[in-house]
Structures are given as C-alpha cells and as structure tokens.
C-alpha cells in the first residue's frame, strides 16, 4: 500500500490485552470518566509508562499512536494487537460503520457486505459519536444503515440529544424510504444537520439494478428519494460513472432535477479501487475523458437549475480545464496520496490527488495539463 497522508491503523502489541471494542483515547488521565465509552490511556515517550488497568481505565504505551492522536479521539481495538483511530480530531473526515449487512450487492462496493448479525455496531457507533462530541460532520456508513428500521430512529434520537453539535452524513441506498411513513419518521427526528447521501446510478431500472446487484432496487431507491425529499430530508445524490451507465448520466440528472425535491447537492464520484471494485475494475472503470461531454452537460444542467454539483475523486489532470472549478479535494486523508510525478505540478495544492489503493493495474497515471 502506498503511503497515505494520514495513518489510521497502529500496531500496538500490548493492545491484545485490551478488550476489543470502542475506546476513548486519552493522553492524560481524565478527572471525570467518560459516560459513553471506556477510557484507554495512551502513553508516549516522556510520559509515565507504568500501566494501570485499574477500574474501567486501561493503559497502553505507543509513542507512535500517542503522537498521532488528540485527547478524546476514539479508537477501535480489535483484540489482536492493533488500534484503529476511527474518530480523529486531526482527520479531514470521520466515518463510523454501523453495519456490514446490506440489501444491495454493488459491483464496486468498497465495504463488501457480510450477512452476520452485527446489531451491536449501531449503539457502539452512537456511543463513539457522543463521546467524541465533535462539531464537524461525522459519516455514518455501512452496509445499509437503514436496514435497522426503528432502531435507526432511536440512534438518531440518542445522537442528536447527546451530541447536538455533531452533524451526520448518512450513506444509504435509500430503499427503506420507499416506505413513506418511515421517511416521515426519519424527517421528524432531524434536528442537527443531517444529510443522507443516496446513490442512484441510472434513469433506467435495468442498468441501476445490474450495478447494485439487486432486482427492484431502482424502483425502491427512486421512490425512496421522492419520499425522503418530499418529507424534507436533505439529500446528497451520488452518481458513480462506470462503463455500464455512461448513457445514463445525463438522463439521470434530468430525472433528479425534474422529480426529486430536497437535493442539496449532486456528487459525481470517480470509481474508487477498493473492495469489489478491484475485482470488477476491468468491466467498470471508465477513463473520464470518455465521458467529459456528459460531465459538462450535467454541470451545465445542474448549474442552470441552481443545484450545486461537485466532481469527487478526480485528479485535475483527468478532467478538462473547464470542469476544474467543480472538482473538489475529496479523498479522505487516510487513503489519499500523490504520485512522485505530481511533485512538480503547480496544480497540486488545488488537486484532490489519487486513492492510495490505486496501485498497479488500478493506477491511472497523472497527465500533463496543457
């Protein structure tokens, strides 16, 4: 793996003595204990390395981890000697995973689903968000978070009551909103800023259903988007261009502009070479130069309708100059990198760079911007 901008996983041999789960990471011993998570005191060079596993507080010594965190970050201990910092005050974006179950089987899923029961993740995530108590937006992803149904409503209530400053960005396939009573129930519980990122890949049902590996998914998501928008839920519509839906991009945007309400933004996202996308790369990835016209047309249509549109995960050199203003630096810092050839590039400060997973066959080289 190429070196990312920020490291998030740390091998700490003594962490295998710490029970698996979410811990609030402290660099100094807190005066009052955290009510939501157990406390893991991290010591570094120059701090007192004596372990005290008294009460709920465990201690580990890792100068590397100590130097990478802020007091109150949240870590996930796997019980096999590693700590993953899941909520970091230094990160440009934090996400919690609430389930690995999903009713879609997207050909490019970055987090391939598992069917085992993992209900404990939802309340663990709530505890982590509340304990972290940040005032930025935290991503809530899966799997499909809305499979929890009513439990998800309780999750929203708890998080918003106890972490009112924290915004949420929930990544969902939106199928659960096909039930308009559920959509309304979610809408009624939105107090702090909550946005749902919902992907739709085609205007044509067969194309979307093929890409997400689930018959009937398109009909559910379309109805879900309509119900959620009409109920007043803020939505970010996500579109991933692949070889299979190039013909769909412009009609899909028209569908969104004409039929969906509540859209805050349309995000067009370059395929990320991770998870199943790696296995299906050859039949999915499409060079952006092959659909630059469609992107241009989409940007034009969205702008004319006053709907913000952004292009995510595109190195600037893969887009025509005219689209640069819509490209955003979007790749999370723990999986973001710039190849050596980028070092001389004057555009680098404005450029989103590459996924660190895009090595070997998945790598699309930087190009010269004329």
């Amino acid at each position, binding site marked *: 793996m190429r070196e990312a901008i920020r490291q998030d996983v740390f091998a700490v041999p003594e962490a295998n003595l710490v029970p698996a789960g979410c811990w609030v990471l402290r660099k100094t011993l807190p005066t009052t204990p955290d009510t939501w998570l157990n406390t893991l005191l991290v010591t570094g060079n120059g701090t007192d390395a004596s372990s005290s596993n008294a009460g709920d507080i465990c201690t580990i010594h890792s100068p590397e981890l100590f130097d990478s965190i802020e007091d109150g970050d949240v870590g996930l201990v796997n019980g096999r000697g590693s700590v993953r910092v899941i909520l970091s005050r230094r990160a440009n974006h934090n996400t919690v995973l609430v389930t690995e179950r999903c009713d879609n089987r997207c050909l490019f899923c970055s987090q391939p689903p598992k069917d085992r029961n993992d209900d404990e993740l939802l309340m663990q995530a709530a505890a982590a968000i509340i304990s972290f108590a940040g005032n930025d937006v935290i991503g809530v992803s899966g799997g499909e978070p809305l499979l929890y149904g009513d439990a998800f409503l309780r999750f929203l209530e708890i998080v918003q009551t106890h972490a009112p400053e924290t915004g949420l960005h929930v990544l969902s396939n939106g199928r659960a909103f096909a039930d308009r009573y559920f959509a309304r129930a979610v809408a009624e519980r939105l107090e702090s800023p909550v946005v749902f990122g919902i992907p739709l890949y085609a*205007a*044509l*049902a*067969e194309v979307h259903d093929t890409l997400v590996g689930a018959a*009937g998914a*398109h*009909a*559910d998501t*379309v*109805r879900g988007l*309509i*119900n959620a*928008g*009409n109920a007043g839920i803020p939505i970010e519509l996500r579109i991933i261009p692949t070889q299979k839906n190039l013909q*769909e991009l412009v*009609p899909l945007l*028209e*569908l969104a*502009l*004409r*039929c*969906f*309400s509540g859209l805050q933004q349309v995000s067009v996202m370059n395929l990320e070479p991770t998870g199943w996308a790696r296995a299906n790369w050859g039949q999915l990835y499409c060079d952006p130069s092959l659909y630059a016209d469609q992107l241009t047309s989409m940007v*034009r*249509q969205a702008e*004319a*309708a*006053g709907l913000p549109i952004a292009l995510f995960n595109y190195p600037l050199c893969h887009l025509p100059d005219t689209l640069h203003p819509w490209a955003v630096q979007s790749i999370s810092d723990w999986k973001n990198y710039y190849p050596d050839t980028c070092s001389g590039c004057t555009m680098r400060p404005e450029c989103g760079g590459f996924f660190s997973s895009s090595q070997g066959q998945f790598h699309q080289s930087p190009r010269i911007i004329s």
Partner: protein
Amino acid sequence: MMLPFNLEPLSDSRYFISNLAGFHRVVARETLELLAEQGDGVLDAGIKQDLARGLFLADSSAGEEAGVAALASGYARRLTRDLAFRPTFMIVPTLRCDHTCRYCQVSRAALGAAHSDYDLDARRIPQVIDLIARLGTAPYKLEIQGGEPLVRFDLVQAIYDEAEARLGATDFEVVITTSLSLLDDTILDWARGRRVVFSTSVDGTEVVHNRNRILPGDNAYQRVKRGIRAIQRQLGPDRVAAVTTVTKDLLAHPEALIEASQELGLTELFVRPVSPYGFAQKSGTGTYSFDDYMAFYDRLLSLIIAHEAAGGQLLSEYSGKIHLQRVFQPDFNGYADLKSPSGFLLDCVLINYDGKVFGSDEARMLQRVNPELDLSCGTVDHFDPAANPVYHKILKESLNAVHPGCEQCAYQPFCGTDPCQGISEQGEPVGDKSRSAFCQYHKRMFSYLIDRYYRDPEARSVMESWCHA
C-alpha cells in the same frame, strides 16, 4: 408498460410527446401507432430504453409504481415552483408620453395632459416602496414603466432613493422601460453608480421604426440609437436591452432587424408579435396572421444562423430562448406568460400612477379599455386581492392542466395561461383555446422551435448557445 403522455404533431410524421413531469421526446408516428396498437412490447430496444429514461414507459410493475411516483413528484414540483410568489414590481410614474405610436393608445396620455390626472403623486412614493417591502423579498425587481417614465425623471429618482433607503442599497435592481428619447447626460450620470438598466424598443431599421414610433417633430430612431450608444459607451453594454414589436412593416423584412442590431451594437433580440391589447388590431397596423408571423420568425432564425456562419457575432433571440428553456431546462420559470398557474399576480404587482394596484401590466391596460370593470387588487394603501372576485376567478382558473384544449396538449407542461388576454379576447379568463391568440402564438413557437431543433443541427447549436449563454 406505458405511462401517460400527451402528443402534438411536428413535421414529417414526427410527434412531440411530453409527460406531466416535463420530459419530452420526438418520436415517429409509427412508434406511436405501435404503442397504441400493441403496447411497448414490440418496440425496438433502443427506442424503448430512450422512452423509459423519460418516464414514458416502465419495464415492470415495480417500475410502473416508481414511474407513477416520479411523474407525480415532477408534476407537483412544477406546480409548487410556478406557484411561488416572486413578483416584479412595476411602477408607472406617469402615463404621459412624448411619442404617439401607432399601436399604443392604451398605455399613454398626451404629453401636455394635466400632471394631476396622469402622474404619480410624489407623496405616495414611500407607500409604494413600503408595499413592495411588505410583499417581496430581496433581491427585489423593480420595473419603471410608462407612459414615458423619463418625462418624470424626478419621480424615477425619488423612487430609487426611497428603495435604496427602505429595501437596502444592494438588494434591488431597477429596469427603466423607456424610448430613450429624453435620455441626457444628467440621467446617464445619475444611472452610472446605480443598479439601473434600460429596456427600450427598436422596431427595425430607421424607416420601419419611425413608421411605428412617432415622435412629433423629431426622429424616434435617431433618438433611440443615440440613447443606446450613449448607454453602451458610458455605462457598459449590459445596461441596455431592446424589445422589438413586429408590425406588418417589419414582417417582410427580418433582415432589417439584423441590420439594426448591427448598427446599434445589440447582440440580443427580443421579438414579439403585436400584442392583442392596445387597440392594435382595431387600428389596422397589427393585422397579420400567426402563419405570417412564424414565416417571419423562420426567416429571422435562418438569418441569425447565416450571420453567425459568416463569422458575425452570435445574436440571440429572447422569445425563442425562453420557450426553449421552458422545455429543456428543469425548473426554469423566469417568464410570467409561460407559467401555470399563470404569472398573474404571482409574478407581477403593478402600481399605477393613480395608486391602483394590478396583477399584471395587461390588467391595467384592460382596465383602461373597460372602465366599467374593476380589475385592480386595491390601492397602494390598501392592497387586497381577496376583495375583488375577479382576482379569485382569475387565479382559480389559471391552471392550464384543466383548461379544455390544454388538457391534451403536449406543450402544456411548458406553457402557461394569460387570463387577461382571455378576458380581453373572449370575455372570460379560460376561453376557447382554438381561437386564443395566446395559444396560437405559444403553440406555434414551441412546435416551430422544437421541430427545427431536432431537424436542423446548425439551428440546434445556435439555440443551445442561446440557452447556455
């Protein structure tokens, strides 16, 4: 499975089809015959996909359910969007005018007429702006109409000052609709640092323009030319726009319009047929058929295309542009005539020189012709549309989807209604669409533009630049 849509014939056995959400396609008659006869099962796969993308077909019962939901949602979006109250506030400081134009006898009074009869009382201006502040939201759009508003430049200044104080210095914009005959350095100096643009009329080249626009003892065309030039030079090219009323004299000479725009340095044309208000028909100058008008428009568009192909600057035509934007641009509702519910009152609040308030410019003209009716929605100090049953009737019947004649029309999602024109022509707001000038004009514009857009690649690229400029 088929989802509902409407159809209208274009040329060459092709049809324009559209649905409630505002999607459209152009299809061959044989495709429609197949659909009517055997349903969508027999269609070519490519056509089927194309139609499914626009919600004309659904591929399954789940898809049908989603399609119904999407069409309904799209339709509801259109209605709520067109229902928004975002009026332009028109103010008529005076009805007096220095011109005695042939087709305008309704919205003017003689220059020498008594000020007290035809001018706004300056003491009322704070009330006028107060009404605007209460009804509107920033950015406010103000349009100063006439008569010739520059006859009372002092009132124009007072209106601007009051707006600046009451609405916020950068929260409004003023359009002054004027012949420019009275434009002088004082007015130009005043306008320089202010949020003011001028809208004027150019009816063709000098001969045609002066035949329509009569300025006793002077040359109207030379005046407007000098005015446009001065604004362009001193204030900038974006500060002046021109509207062309197509009279019979211009009908045979669309090239005159291209010539005039070259001479005046204007790159946007805005051509319209003579309006059915203002006695134009009775005075005999405006009597031409819509077929004649569309033949003129067709030649004008070809001239614009040829002009650009020959290396000239691209000229746009605003009427064509708004019809196209209604079709191609979701959410476009920037033109009061092409809205359903109609833009009446929702898009316009007109404050007349006498303090009466109207729901559109047409309503005040209609009022002049029909003094026995009350078409106002109150006065500056007592704005109350609910008090006048005519307003209730007009607004109630301003939804074209339920008008006989519009119900089946494929242009319905993009079109609108003009209740005042209905009242003017047929004595009631809905009217018989087969005899409605509004319907004839807009239906022809839509079908002409769409037909040409899909038939003529050169025309298409010109039309696309209009829409995306």
